[in-house]
């Protein structure tokens, strides 16, 4: 059967089981949007392409499926880029489509033309410019394969308008053949010899720590991680991206490590004799001063991406493979070690509980409305079962510290790129993927305004996300650094000219609730959850509250500022 490029595009998406896509049309996408009209794919019209990219990303993180977004050529494509870079840094499977000017105009500075594949080359896992209608189906198939396999990431397909209009034969059954790319063969199984070496190191260790990241969540290995910790009695610290990979009420849980990690996680790392890194990449927010990181520790590093291994920290036993596969193999061997291997870690556990007792994660509990209290209340009211998206900055750190994440894919945050404006659209994407879930965006007043226009998208599609603005009238994290390291010179961080967020909610046709007293928090949260549509909760919190503990930039991981005197 002969189909146009646009029809092949839509048929291919249906074959990939795409249920929903996010985006905005434009001149060069008209043929495609004409086919999408009436197609069995839910289309969410966003108000900015950045919103579309983050929604696809949030949908992917919450569901584990590939998120799909689409934007027109030129400005549509460049508006997508922040979303693509965000997904790229956090290994999120997204397939983005961009319209392109007709092939004979490409490179001519045509109206709404940008070199999209050139611009996005370094912020995608891979990208394509499709110049022949006969290549559309195979390109889409490949793109989904690349996006979801190995270390996942965003893939972009640039799609000229004349290719959408051209037609060729499309045979459905052919679409299902396996993708075979000779130069792309991710390694899923760990090398048995390396695994054996790792087990030997674990056997010899007395003060081991497991340091696990987003890779554990991506590979669905939370169960394997729990088993490994249980059979070895080795404590576990998680990265921001790893939140939810390990139950937080466990005795063995250390909380997050790094710049705003717990005192005890950072001290455990610095004093350990073995670090078992799983699906994490030793970035600068984790290691603090690199040359003083974990000086006594040997390091085992399990990662599917060989370029993550020995990039920042020299690794003793590298294991390239999928976290789930490798841990399953390791657990088989660890199970045989028996209780003697657990016994010798008693002393180390005692030391850690001592640190925990002396330096718990806490904040000043008085009559004032503090942001940490709001986050704790969200945890209580949702019984820890909500999906929490965050913006970036103080709100993000408090959301991590004071909500307990016990399930994978329940904490959605821009860890690598640190994209302000991410949380709200990501929450919309997550809620559309998991409609049965309560979904919160824990936001700052600064971040929320970076994609506030998506209120229209949320209202229009009845997406009941709850936006909890921890409103301190500042770009809070930058202000905190200015307070601590720049003599309180609050240069360009004051946001007191903020709009009235309750009125903003109302103007969009949503509910807005302002909370300025501690006693009103719980009631407001319950009210917000009971409402079907989106709700903005404007919490007027203590303006100069800081995120502690904190390891200043350039300091050693255990040089922790615990609070201000």
């Amino acid at each position, binding site marked *: 059967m002969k189909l146009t490029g646009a029809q092949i595009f839509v048929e291919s998406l249906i074959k990939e089981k795409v249920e929903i896509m996010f985006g905005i049309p434009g001149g060069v996408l008209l043929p495609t949007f004409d086919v999408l009209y009436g197609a069995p794919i839910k289309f969410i019209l966003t108000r900015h392409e950045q919103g579309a990219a983050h929604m696809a990303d949030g949908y992917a993180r919450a569901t584990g499926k590939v998120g799909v977004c689409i934007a027109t050529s030129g400005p549509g494509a460049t508006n997508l880029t922040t979303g693509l870079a965000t997904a790229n840094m956090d290994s999120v499977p997204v397939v983005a489509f961009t319209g392109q000017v007709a092939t004979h105009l490409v490179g001519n500075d045509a109206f709404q033309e940008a070199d999209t*594949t*050139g611009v996005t*080359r*370094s912020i995608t*896992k*891979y*990208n394509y*410019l499709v110049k022949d209608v006969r290549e559309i189906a195979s390109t889409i198939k490949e793109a989904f394969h*690349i996006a979801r396999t190995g270390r996942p990431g965003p893939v972009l397909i640039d799609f000229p308008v004349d290719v959408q209009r051209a037609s060729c034969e499309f045979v459905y059954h052919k679409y299902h053949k396996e993708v075979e*790319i*000779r*130069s*792309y063969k991710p390694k899923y199984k760990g090398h048995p010899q390396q695994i054996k070496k790792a087990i030997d190191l674990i056997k010899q260790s007395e003060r081991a720590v497991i340091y696990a990241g987003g890779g554990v969540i991506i590979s669905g290995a939370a169960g394997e991680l729990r088993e490994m910790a249980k059979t070895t009695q080795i404590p576990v610290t998680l990265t921001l991206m790893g939140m939810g990979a390990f139950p937080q009420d466990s005795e063995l849980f250390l909380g997050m490590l790094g710049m705003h990690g717990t005192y005890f996680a950072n001290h455990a790392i610095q004093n350990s004799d073995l670090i078992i890194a799983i699906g994490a990449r030793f970035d600068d927010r984790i290691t603090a001063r690199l040359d003083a990181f974990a000086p006594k520790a040997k390091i085992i590093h399990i990662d599917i*991406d*060989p*370029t993550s291994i*020995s*990039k920042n920290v020299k690794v003793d036993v590298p294991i390239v493979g999928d976290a789930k596969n490798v841990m399953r193999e390791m657990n088989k061997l660890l199970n045989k070690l028996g209780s003697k291997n657990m016994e010798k870690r008693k002393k180390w556990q005692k030391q850690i509980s001592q640190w925990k007792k002396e330096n718990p994660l806490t904040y000043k509990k008085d009559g004032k409305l503090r942001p940490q209290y709001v986050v704790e209340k969200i945890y209580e009211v949702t019984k820890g079962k909500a999906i929490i998206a965050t913006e970036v900055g103080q709100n993000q750190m408090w959301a991590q510290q004071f909500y307990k994440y016990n399930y994978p894919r329940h904490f959605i945050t821009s860890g690598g790129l640190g994209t302000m404006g991410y949380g709200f659209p990501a929450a919309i994407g997550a809620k559309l993927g998991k409609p049965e879930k309560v979904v919160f965006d824990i936001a700052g007043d600064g971040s929320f305004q970076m994609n506030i226009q998506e209120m229209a998208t949320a209202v229009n599609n009845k997406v009941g996300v709850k936006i909890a603005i921890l409103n301190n009238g500042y770009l809070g994290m930058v202000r905190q650094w200015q307070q601590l390291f720049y003599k309180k010179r609050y240069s360009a961080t004051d946001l007191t000219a903020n709009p009235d967020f309750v009125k903003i909610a109302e103007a969009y046709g949503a509910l807005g609730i302002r909370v300025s007293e501690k006693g009103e928090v719980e009631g407001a949260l319950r009210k917000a959850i009971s409402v079907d549509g989106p709700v903005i909760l404007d919490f007027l919190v203590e303006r100069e509250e800081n995120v502690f503990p904190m390891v200043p930039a350039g300091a050693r991981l255990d040089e922790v500022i615990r609070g201000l005197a």
Partner: protein
Amino acid sequence: MRHTISVLVENKPGVLARISSLFSARGFNIDSLAVGETEQHDVSRMTIIVKGDEKILEQVMKQLNKLIDIIKVIDFVGQPHLERDLVLIKVNAGKGKRSEVLEIVDIFRAKIVDVASNSVIVEMTGDEEKILALVNMLKPYGIKEIVRTGIVAMGRG
């Protein structure tokens, strides 16, 4: 340290940009780059000469391997291999000096491929060292232009 890196890649648009940006993003200067088709028309080989910090280079090699269009990466350091570069040198060779230039060309087993009234173009193939030697010998006569293809390398045996 100088590295001769040979990369087998898919012969399609954008591949060179992906590779060169890996180097430039880490502040590496590519000293020499040669690209050509292999025995398979859909596979090209790039030979890249770089110098730089070993640790960063190890990372670049891994990143190269990770690129989806790259089929194979070989670093020839410490491996028996041949390197060849082709150079064209336009050198002054007026009446009085022409025979001297010809003599040097002869000794290097190079070739004269073009003659004009005041200059000749010399063609030679060789490794880095031999080319430098020839260039040094011809310098006193006045070199007007040098064009090189870039180094290509092949493992022995």
